[in-house]
């Protein structure tokens, strides 16, 4: 399988970078933006859980697991698209 041309390589890296920034933005949102509003979110209570507390204790954690699995499959798709996924 021939190596990528420089143009293809740049396109691959640009897609990779875009995925990276998307995931980083979501990570930042769940790690810092939501907790910043914990006091206000705590006024909403669902099944006994004040929402601010819930996110720090469970909600954001779930988002991390989802983000990691999503990253693995989305990045693999990008690699396959450019023919650089391992066999």
């Amino acid at each position, binding site marked *: 399988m021939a190596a990528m041309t420089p143009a293809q*390589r740049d396109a691959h890296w640009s897609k990779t970078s875009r995925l990276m920034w998307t995931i980083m933005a979501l990570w930042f949102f769940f790690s810092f933006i939501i907790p910043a509003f914990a006091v206000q979110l705590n006024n909403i209570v669902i099944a006994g859980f004040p929402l601010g507390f819930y996110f720090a204790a469970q909600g954001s*954690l779930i988002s991390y*697991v989802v983000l990691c699995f999503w990253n693995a499959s989305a990045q693999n798709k990008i*690699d396959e698209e450019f023919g650089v996924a391992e066999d």
Partner: protein
Amino acid sequence: MAQATTRSGFIANLGKIYGGYTGGFIFFVILLAIAEQMGVPNKIIGYAFVFLTIGVYAYIGILSRTSELSEYYVAGRVVPPVFNGMATGADWMSAASFISMAGGLYLAGYGGLGYVLGWTGGYVLVAVLLAPYLRKFGQFTVPDFLGVRYEGNTARVCGVIVLFSASFTYIVAQTFGIGIITSRFLGIPFEVAIFVGLLGILVCSMLGGMRAVTWTQVAQYIILIIAYLTPVVWLSTTLYGLPIPELTYGQALNEIAELEKKLGIVKPHVAAYVDAKGQFSWVEFHNFWALVLCLMVGTASLPHILMRYFTTPNVRDARKSVAWSIFFIFLLYFTAPAYAAFAKREVYRDVIGQQISSLPAWVQNWSQVGGLLTIKDGNSDGILQLSEFVINQDIIVLSMPEIAGLPYVISGLVAAGGLAAALSTADGLLLAIANALSHDIYFKMIDPKASTVRRLVVARALLVIVAIIGAAVAGTRPAGIIQMVAWAFSLAAAGLFAPLVLGIWWKRTTSTGAILGMMSGFGVCLYYLIATRYFDMPLWFGIRNISSALFGMPVAFIVTWVVSLMTAPPSKEMQDFVDSIRTPKGDLAWVRGSQHE
């Protein structure tokens, strides 16, 4: 050849092997439960748990012995993602996570969730920014990468120094935890228990290095997760009819809120960023996000964790492995707040405001054991006020089986789980330190012509030496274990995150820039730590020194950036090398040192 077939036979049958192991362990617990009902004393049950589990780990350690370098350093690169995820989970979850964290949440309420967020969110950074690229790089250690990318031994040595500072601090804390657990459940003096624990650590890792440690860690994860979940699942079922404590503790939070009003407690469990009087505080707010940031970035900088992704077969599996790691870690972390909630509900409902003469059995038992739970009738009214009840955070997990009305065998199970957590982390750390010293210092810098046999001898000798020094330091009972662990994270974050991430994601990073960035970031962080801890320097912006990397990290990034732009760009070979790291398929482009064994 026969060796190779047994090894691949092992990989192909992992599910069956560990399935059988899990079944065997559950059978063992049931046997001990029957023994307890038949009158076997608790001490024997405690001994059975400790020695039998360590025996199993030693057995796995012996089965995994090797004389092959790639097996000793990176487990032969054959570990499938799911199992690597479990091993990472055990490696990650130390005595601090297993025993102290739920207690920390009990004491601090929302404020303690900074640790929960900080110790999970970092894995997103690992998955996206580092693991796949370090795996493609494919050598044995993190300083290996620094030495190649930044062209020489200066970067390599800086990497080793940061690695050593962070990992050694961390391992002293772990050995201390092992000593506490072992001494409590075997009833032997602390100083002796530390060396018993030390032997436990060494039997797992000496003969097989990373290969032994990985497969032992999978076994340890299975034990620790069963041990952690059992008491709370039981309690959740008895209290609310649903064996899912992570859902039912919402009701416990409800009850706690009402009890807080009834008892006149000013600092609610769920209130965010409040001080001791229950008032919102900007200092608490800023310390929370600073801690979260430092712990997350530290996660992505700790060499014993990054090393775990060198053991997967390829880049794609490295990414999947990080996802499985965070999943297995999540199972424990999202349960910890349930422990805290159930314990607090119990204390507020059945302990505070009750007659001191008729407190529940678990309170009476633990107040006998030295210093972990104290009851003092300060105002002599015969009733226990909140201020008269002082509980050490380590008890929350250890006493949960009794709170849930479970037999002693479950307490023994929890002890085995805590021991598994502590041993697995200590093994991972010890290996990271010894491997850096034997591979990066001895082989790469002192004797590049050393034979395989000699390299393995040096590696194993260093393992023993570092373990003994760690145990000796732990024996002096240093104060503030959770603090020490947090420092380790900050030191790693300030020293390693910038050169690793920039080395992969910014081709323009030069060796001089990275080296100066590492030294300045690490230096600022270390300065803040030592000055505030030992020289009473006032805090900068009220930020506590468990978040020292808040100051070190930006310095590392800025210095790396500025100096890189001021020095000549990396060579064409180096830029091609970085391109090849970013591409999963294909060989690495050549630069000096990039060809590995």
